[in-house]
């Protein structure tokens, strides 16, 4: 659990006049962030129920107080190996449109507030997939935080079912 990951200066927020809060989390040593408004809940990892014929990064489904939520492995979604989940792993439950989805990450870091002007675009050299998965980059003191485009990553099958 690293602290003081993101310290955005008050000056920047005030300069733009528009700020947004992001929940940051770790996958390996990389820091990703999602808009806090999309986050519904943060849960400790618990065993999921496997489903047949699912994408390789889908870990199964979770019963979240009566709602069946699919859980995706973010590391696997980004092309890494499947995560070996333990006590300290965390599932971030997010709402993507009407759909509720769980995202398995290594740890939740912090909640950061970012001014709109601080969000940098993704450089053009990245591939199409990367550019669609990452909506922007925020530079903090220590790290570069990637803002994840959740609908692009997980909502496509949701549209198909809808």
């Amino acid at each position, binding site marked *: *659990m690293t602290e003081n990951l993101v310290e955005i200066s008050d000056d920047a927020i005030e300069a733009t006049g528009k700020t947004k809060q992001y*929940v940051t989390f770790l996958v390996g040593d990389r820091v990703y962030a999602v808009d806090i408004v999309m986050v519904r809940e943060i849960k400790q990892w618990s065993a999921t129920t496997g489903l047949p014929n699912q994408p390789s990064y889908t870990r199964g489904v979770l019963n979240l107080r009566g709602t069946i939520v699919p859980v995706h492995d973010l590391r696997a979604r980004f092309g890494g190996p499947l995560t070996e989940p333990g006590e300290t792993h965390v599932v971030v439950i997010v709402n993507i449109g009407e759909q509720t989805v769980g995202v398995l990450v290594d740890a939740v870091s912090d909640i950061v507030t970012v001014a709109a002007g601080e969000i940098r675009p993704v450089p053009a050299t990245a591939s199409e997939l990367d550019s669609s998965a990452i909506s922007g980059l925020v530079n903090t003191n220590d790290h570069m935080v990637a803002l994840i485009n959740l609908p692009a990553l997980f909502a496509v099958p949701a549209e198909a079912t809808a």
Partner: protein
Amino acid sequence: MSDASQQISPQRWSVSITWKLAGMVFATSLVAMFLIGAVADNQSRSTALDLTSQKLANRTAAGRLGVKLYGERMESLVATLAASTLGRQPMIEFSSQWNEQFGIDPSASLREAYLDKNPHPFAQRDRLDKGDDGSAYSLQHQRHHPGLRAFADSSGLYDVFLIDPDGNIVYSVRKEDDFATNVIDGPLAGSGLANVFLATKETRSGAVSPLQTYGPSEDAPALFFAAPILADNETFLGVAAIHVSREKLQAAAEGQAGTVEASRTYLVGADGILRSDIAEIDGEDALSRSWQSPLLQQAFAEGRALGETVGITGEPVFAAIETVTWGAEEWAVVTQWEVDVFMAPAREMRELMLLFAAPVLAIILSLAWLVSRSFSRPIASMSGAVARLAAGELLEVPGQKRNDELGGLARALTKINDMAMRNGQIRRALDGAEQALLLTDADGKVTYLNTAMCGLLHRSLAAIQAHDPHFDPDNLIGGSLAPLLALDGGTIVELATIAKPENTVVTLGDHAIRATVSPLFDGNGIRSGYHIEWLDISDQLAIEKQIDDVIGAVATGDFSRRISVESDQPFVANLIRGLNSISEVIDDFLTELRKTLETMSAGDTTQRMSTGRTGRFLEVAEATNSTMAQTGTLVGRIKTSSHEIETAAGGIAAGASDLSARAENQASSLQQTAATMEQLAANVRSNAANIEEVNALAEQSSRAAENGQSVVTNAVNAMTRIEDSAAKVSEIVAVIDSIAFQTNLLALNAAVEAARAGDAGKGFAVVASEVRTLAQRSADAARDINDLIQQSGGEVADGVRLVRSTGTSLEEIATGITKVAATAAQIAASGREQTNGIEDIAAAVNKLDEITQQNSALADKSAGEAAALSTQVEALTALTATFKVDDRDAAPVAKREVDLDTDWQDFASKRVAVSKTDPATMALPKSQTSPAAHATAGAALATVEDDHEDWSEF
């Protein structure tokens, strides 16, 4: 032939046996050939007959069938003609023309037109198709004639007739003289044609005529078949008739095969008259020639017949006959074959055999004569030779080199002759033998006695006749042997029980005669007779008795007896002389030996026996002389030795006193040694006590080391417990960490909710942030505790390791102490052994001291014994002085006395064997009487020697 006395002329015998053998062989061959010839001839005849009869029967059966079928075919033809338009249409038209056109005499008109005015010759009148009378008949004739002519030609018919119901022949094919005549009242009345017409008209069915002469055909026999021609309403229109061709009938009878040479086939009626012509005989035979034969009658009775008979022309034939029905008549088909012809092959064979038989018989006769000659000639010559052999001539039996039985016979004859010659020689030898011999047959009848036997019997005649007054030695052959054997008093009673030669002694007057009876066996082991040798043994018995007496005396040691009898036998005379001479020689020798020994027993060893003898006598004489000489020498030596012993005894006494002094010296040294040993033993004992103490200390240290080890174990256990507690603390810390994690999550969620609440949630967000900070710090604290516990666990592990190494060191110390204890125990054991060894040495020294004391005493005693020895040697010298000894024997004694002083030890060493005697020798009583003086002296010497050896060993 075996009897040589039957003197038959060899030439006559030879001729006879040659011709007999030859004649026999010839006669046998002749009979055999005749039999074979007869059988072969008979067989060939019978075969020919069988073949012929079979062939004829077949041919006849075929002929019969041909005739039958021909008749049936003719019947069928005429019936067809009558029933078809071929016959019926012209019948109707010709008969109507006959009745309507010609009015009063149609016969004359038609005969004129078709016979008289026929342009063709008689045999070809049928060629006219139409008469030139211009009548309607001729028109009809022209229409029907060619068809009917063709019918007749193609069917092989001689002629075809159409006859109207009135009997007018209204048509004929051949236009012979019967044409246009009436068969009822015309010239043809009674002919065959008329008969068949009438029969047909009457019965309205077909008819067949028998063979009859027929006028219009130049009186040739003719056969007719007829059938009625009926209208559709059964109205009788006329008769169709055919004149059958006899040539065709004959051909049918002969069959398809044609004729064989000298065979004939013909037809005969039941009356024996021929019904067919025979081609080989000129002129018409049918109805003119008759053939009567029993075979024919048999055929008509039985349907067929087969056998030999007289043929139609009077020659012997073999004939086969079968009967066949021809119309109303019964005919026979006869096939005959001349016997001479079909038997020709058999006859030729017989002639050929006779032709061959003559030369073969001639060859057999000559061969038989040659073979029998080859037998009879050697037999004749052997017969002559055997006759000459029997007459006593010496010659070779001819034919021995032949390989057949005759050769064997000749060789056997030669062997028999040789044996006979040898037997004659043996008999002559027996006759001339000195030994009296007699042979008998198996029943004991005398068969032979030689000249010596005759002499013996004659010499003893008086004695024999005393037993048997009728005994005649010249007529003994053939007589019984019993009278002679009875003389022995019945020892040999039953000859048949003798299995091997047996002796018996027969006494004849003053002669004793030994008869040796031996059984004789032939080649098969069967007893064939007995052989008896007779020997006069009277003189021999007398001499034997005297020799027995003398030998008996010698055996008991009496050599004074002599044999006084004289013998004329050289061997026995020599034996007697020898025995007498042996007795004399032994007697002389023993006398001299006795005298010599008597002088020796008197103490004189100078007497000697004479050595002028040989063999054992010489050996015994020399041995006796040697004994005398040796005894003399021995006594001389004993005398010399006595002197030597005396001197030695003095030396011994001196040595013994010297020894005694030395022994005392030795004893004092030994006492010193014993004292030193005691001191040594005391030191060793003190060492042993020290070692025991060391041992006890080592055991104590060992126990202490063991206690240290148990302390180490307890320390290790305590450390393990500390490790367990640390693990539990770690678990608790993990729980705290987990709670911090959960709290952090809760704070995050609270922050999320606060963010959603917008400005309203800002205060809540601050709280959440604080909570998160707290959770963070809890987690950090938990982590610190965990690190501390980890560190403490590592140190505890180090402690455990150190304690364990302490335990190992303690263990090694304990082991070292145990080893020290063991070594101390070993040293203690060695100390005890040393003590024992020192005690043993001390004991040995004491023992040594004791022995030395004893030795000293013994040396004293030896000196005394040496003195006693001197006394006894003097006694010995006195004893030997009684012997008379030659001077030569005593001489070496003086020489030895000279170097006795320097040599006494050497003398003693030569007596070692005596010194080895049992210690019991020492126990002998010291004072002895004179007979034991030698032994005592020896014992004294031995004692001295013993001590001497002991000292040198010590």
